[in-house]
């Protein structure tokens, strides 16, 4: 579904990605783990075409996203839903308007009743009721904002959902519910998910496949078990910090 091949990106002198290659099969949840500043978010922004690579290619659903621009790129993005690190809800719109936005833009002739029903259904997937519909993003807690962001990402039935640090800054209980939301999205809607995270616990709960990004390169890649047994020193150290605590 998503193929990233030999991706390089530098900002000025700083090389952030140095030859990243990934293959994400359809219907799986793929987690990219890495410390802060390892280039995770930059990788994610290449997948959705918000950044252009210096070298290498990104294919999504058979389309080479990395070579598109303008209207063609905008059209190609219809397969995506994305959950941003800070939720990135539109703060001039209510919860209803936020969740309805991608649907209204994708299906411009959708009837008002239909629109409302699908927004409510999408909010139900993330355990939010109709009472939040008229709330403003500024009135919601961090965890609720993340859920609304996920509802917004899922509402237009995307084939691919991208998550940028979905559990960062959340308490353990909310983290757990975000993890189950990611799993539910996969099971109920059969979406392909790419999750960028430094939360090892959460990564092992949701991942079908994992990659560890270090210094702009993939240090290990495979099923969670394969990555856990990796003999790469950095991967061992990165994972041991968490597994020792268990």
């Amino acid at each position, binding site marked *: 579904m998503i193929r990233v091949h030999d991706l390089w990106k530098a900002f000025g002198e700083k090389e952030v990605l140095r030859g990243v290659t990934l293959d994400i099969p359809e219907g799986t949840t793929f987690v990219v783990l890495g410390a802060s500043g390892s280039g995770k978010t930059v990788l994610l*922004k290449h997948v959705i075409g918000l950044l252009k690579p210096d070298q290498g290619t990104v294919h999504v659903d058979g389309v080479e996203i990395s070579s598109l621009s303008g*209207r063609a790129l*905008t059209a190609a993005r219809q397969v995506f839903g*994305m959950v941003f690190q800070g939720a990135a809800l539109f*703060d001039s719109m209510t919860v209803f308007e936020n969740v309805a936005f*991608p649907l209204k833009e994708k299906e411009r002739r959708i009837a008002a009743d239909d629109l409302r029903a699908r927004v409510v259904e999408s909010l139900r997937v993330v355990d939010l009721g109709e009472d939040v519909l008229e709330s403003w993003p500024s009135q919601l807690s961090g965890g609720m904002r993340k859920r609304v962001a996920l509802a917004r990402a899922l509402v237009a039935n995307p084939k691919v959902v991208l998550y940028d640090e979905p559990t960062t800054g959340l308490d353990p209980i909310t983290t757990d519910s975000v993890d189950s939301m990611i799993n539910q999205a996969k099971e109920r809607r059969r979406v392909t998910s790419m999750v960028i995270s430094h939360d090892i616990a959460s990564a092992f709960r949701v991942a079908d496949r994992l990659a560890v990004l270090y210094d702009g390169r993939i240090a290990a890649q495979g099923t969670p078990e394969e990555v856990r047994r990796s003999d790469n020193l950095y991967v061992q150290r990165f994972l041991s910090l968490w597994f020792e605590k268990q």
Partner: protein
Amino acid sequence: MHVVGVGRIRAVFEDFGAQVLFAGETLAWALRPPFRPELLLHQAAAIGVGSTFIVAVTGLFAGMVLALQGNYAMRQFGAEGYVGGFVAISLVRELGPVFTALMVTGRSGSAITTELGTMRVTEQIDAMESMAVSPIQYLVVPRVLAATLMMPLLAVVFNATGYLGGYLIGTYVSLIPPGPFLDHTRSMVDVHDMTHGLTKALLFGTVVSLIATYRGYSASGGARGVGEATTRAVVWSSVAILVVDYLLTFIAIG
């Protein structure tokens, strides 16, 4: 020292180039469907209706000052009767469009930059792009169109209250007889003065809103970056208004 200077000049040109490309992109997206008249109306209300009061008040005082100054200068030649024409011509050709544009820059231009800048640094613009919606088309086009359409209308408001202020001060304070005041207005001002002034206002609307949206759209670096972007938007808009004003006046009557 020398190298630093060259670098800065280069940065200014690069910035200007990026602004021109942004304007081109805005034009391209303005011509493509889907069109969103509801967003245009919303922005027209925010920029146009929202600025009416402040533009009317500034216009009133500008006209009052013009009448006082005009009377002071023309009395020396015994030409007080021409004050009405002087006030009207100054307003319609020059002060109306320029002052209106400066007021809209301060009120709406800064608000546009802050809003788009905040959306940029909180990833709302990225989020919109990720939903296959062009932020240029959704956010920038309605603001630029609304400002372009509203600026001439606001200039008309400025001219109207300005002339009213001039008339009140000219006839009641400076005691110029209303007959010659109105008569000379009619004989001195014609439709070309109006089109000249309104064309200016139209272009000021485009220029100011393009600068404000570009600065917000390209903001980076958190709250501080948004603040810097807003300052730049107001400063460059004000400079641009006067430069464009000179160029248009030169082309028209040079």
